[in-house]
């Protein structure tokens, strides 16, 4: 990156380090922190949406919809989330390819032949002719969907609990005013549930942050991948030979996560404080007595 970096073998000390830390692969390493933040930014809203859908479904009056909602919300209770992270992307990929196989391929050959999953070339997802970035985006999309499904189920649990926690009298009053069920939901239930949901949701956000290294298992080139790649021992055939430095790379990643959770905790505490102002809850009451509001 710097002009004096042209011949790494003559450098030493700080100059060597400054050149080493600005190589192309290190730039990819730094960019992968952005990938993590991007994943968080995309997944959180989608998961919240899934969670809202799941919570509403499990309150539904139509029995099949309610069953679906109940199953969805309880699926993460007994099964480790990592099983879903491994299962959902493959299942989704094969499902999509199977659908395309039915539509695009001429042959009626079965998709499963022995231990192989075979679809014709035009049904492959993404097409083997498509450029590298399409493959990357496709893998990332599958990862986002897997995360959203799992964390949507977590969020559905939280939101369902929050909806149940809204005082029944509030909803009955709204009904007495002649509001339709939709109006009750929109005007009374949803605005009031947030204060009950927020502690759970903030907890969920923390778990989501701490689940992002699992991207590595899905084959995404994330920070864990680069920490392992860059940290591994480099012989003199590399421009910047060094011994096994994976420990230091992982320490850097650890510090990144500690910072993320620390900052999130500070911010979420403030939001919770704000939202509980004036609420008929213990926190709101404590604030009223202390004369903060």
């Amino acid at each position, binding site marked *: 990156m710097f002009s004096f970096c042209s011949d790494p073998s003559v450098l030493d000390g700080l100059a060597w380090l400054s050149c080493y830390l600005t190589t192309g692969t290190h730039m990819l390493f730094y960019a992968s922190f952005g990938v993590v933040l991007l994943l968080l930014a995309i997944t959180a809203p989608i998961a919240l949406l899934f969670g809202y859908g799941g919570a509403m479904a499990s309150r539904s009056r139509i029995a099949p919809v309610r069953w679906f909602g109940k199953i969805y919300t309880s699926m*993460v*209770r*007994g*099964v*480790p*989330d*990592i*099983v879903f992270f*491994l*299962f959902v992307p*493959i*299942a989704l990929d*094969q499902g999509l390819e199977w659908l395309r196989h039915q539509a695009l391929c001429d042959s009626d050959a079965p998709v*499963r032949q022995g*231990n*192989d*999953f075979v679809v014709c070339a035009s049904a492959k997802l993404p097409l083997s002719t498509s450029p590298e970035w399409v493959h990357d985006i496709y893998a990332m999309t599958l990862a986002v969907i897997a995360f959203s499904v799992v964390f949507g189920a*977590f969020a559905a*649990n*939280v939101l369902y609990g929050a909806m149940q926690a809204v005082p029944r009298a509030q909803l009955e009053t709204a009904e007495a005013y002649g509001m339709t069920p939709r109006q009750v939901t929109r005007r009374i239930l949803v605005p009031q549930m947030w204060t009950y949901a927020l502690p*759970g949701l903030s*907890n*969920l956000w923390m*778990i989501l*942050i*701490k*689940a*992002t*290294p*699992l991207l*590595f*298992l899905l084959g995404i080139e994330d920070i*864990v991948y680069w*920490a*392992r790649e860059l*940290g591994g021992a480099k012989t003199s055939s590399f421009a910047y030979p060094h011994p*096994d430095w*994976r*420990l230091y790379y*992982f*320490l850097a*990643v*650890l510090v990144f*996560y*500690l910072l993320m*959770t*620390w900052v999130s905790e500070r911010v979420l505490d403030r939001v919770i404080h704000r939202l509980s102002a004036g609420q008929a809850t213990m926190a709101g009451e404590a604030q009223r007595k202390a004369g903060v509001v």
Partner: protein
Amino acid sequence: MDYGLRSLGFGERLLPRSDFTLCQQFTLIGSGLIWNLYFAFFALLFGFFLATGLALAKTSTNSWLRKPAEGFIFLFRGSPLFIQFFLAYEALVMLPRAGVEIFGFTVATSWLTKAWAGALIVLTLNTAAYSAQIFHGALMSVPKGDIEAAEAYGMTGWTKFRRVLWPTMLRLAWPSYTNEAIFLFHATTLVFFSGFPAFQQRGDSLYYASYFAGQTFNPFIAYPIVALYFIVSTLALIGLSGIVNRRLNRHLPGAAGRIRYRPQIIR
């Protein structure tokens, strides 16, 4: 079937390569479950005592005790378990192969890099941090009257802790602690996906499941089997914890019966 104890290194050595039967998958994945149960049991056992100590240290007025406890809890609760595994493995590998000399004795260190010890240490420390936070919260909400009553009886120090503080703390913390235990049990699936290698293909249930899914390109059989095993084990864990909960609440007439078990899913 010769795969019943495959995860421990007994029985048939070669994993099946073709013609996978349902029976093979059930047996191998079930044999891997032994590791999950082993990690969960010992991590919870050791972690429980460590957590009690940490929670007490966190309530201490002595900042030499309190600050380290707070730092420990922040470190392990604030970072992903996955990274902790990697970091621990890299750190343990760096120990000298031949062992460390302490007072003339050579202490072997190579066993620490094996999953059974290294991963167990990480899991223990991790659950200790989470449980310590739960126990600390429970200690803070022990009713003042209980403590005053204990002091009025002339109890101090250890006796007061053993007979009043600790049972009440456990009683209050138990529902959340159960939740933590479930989370830890589920986290044991991470062991063989993190830095710790599966020696001679002796892995946990998810290790074998992903082996089968990788060999057959069919995720719809192996992963549901793992899910089934975990659902059954989790239900057993909840049942077990319900028994403990009844015992902890036995002096409160009606309380144990009334507590409806509704495990939270948030750690």
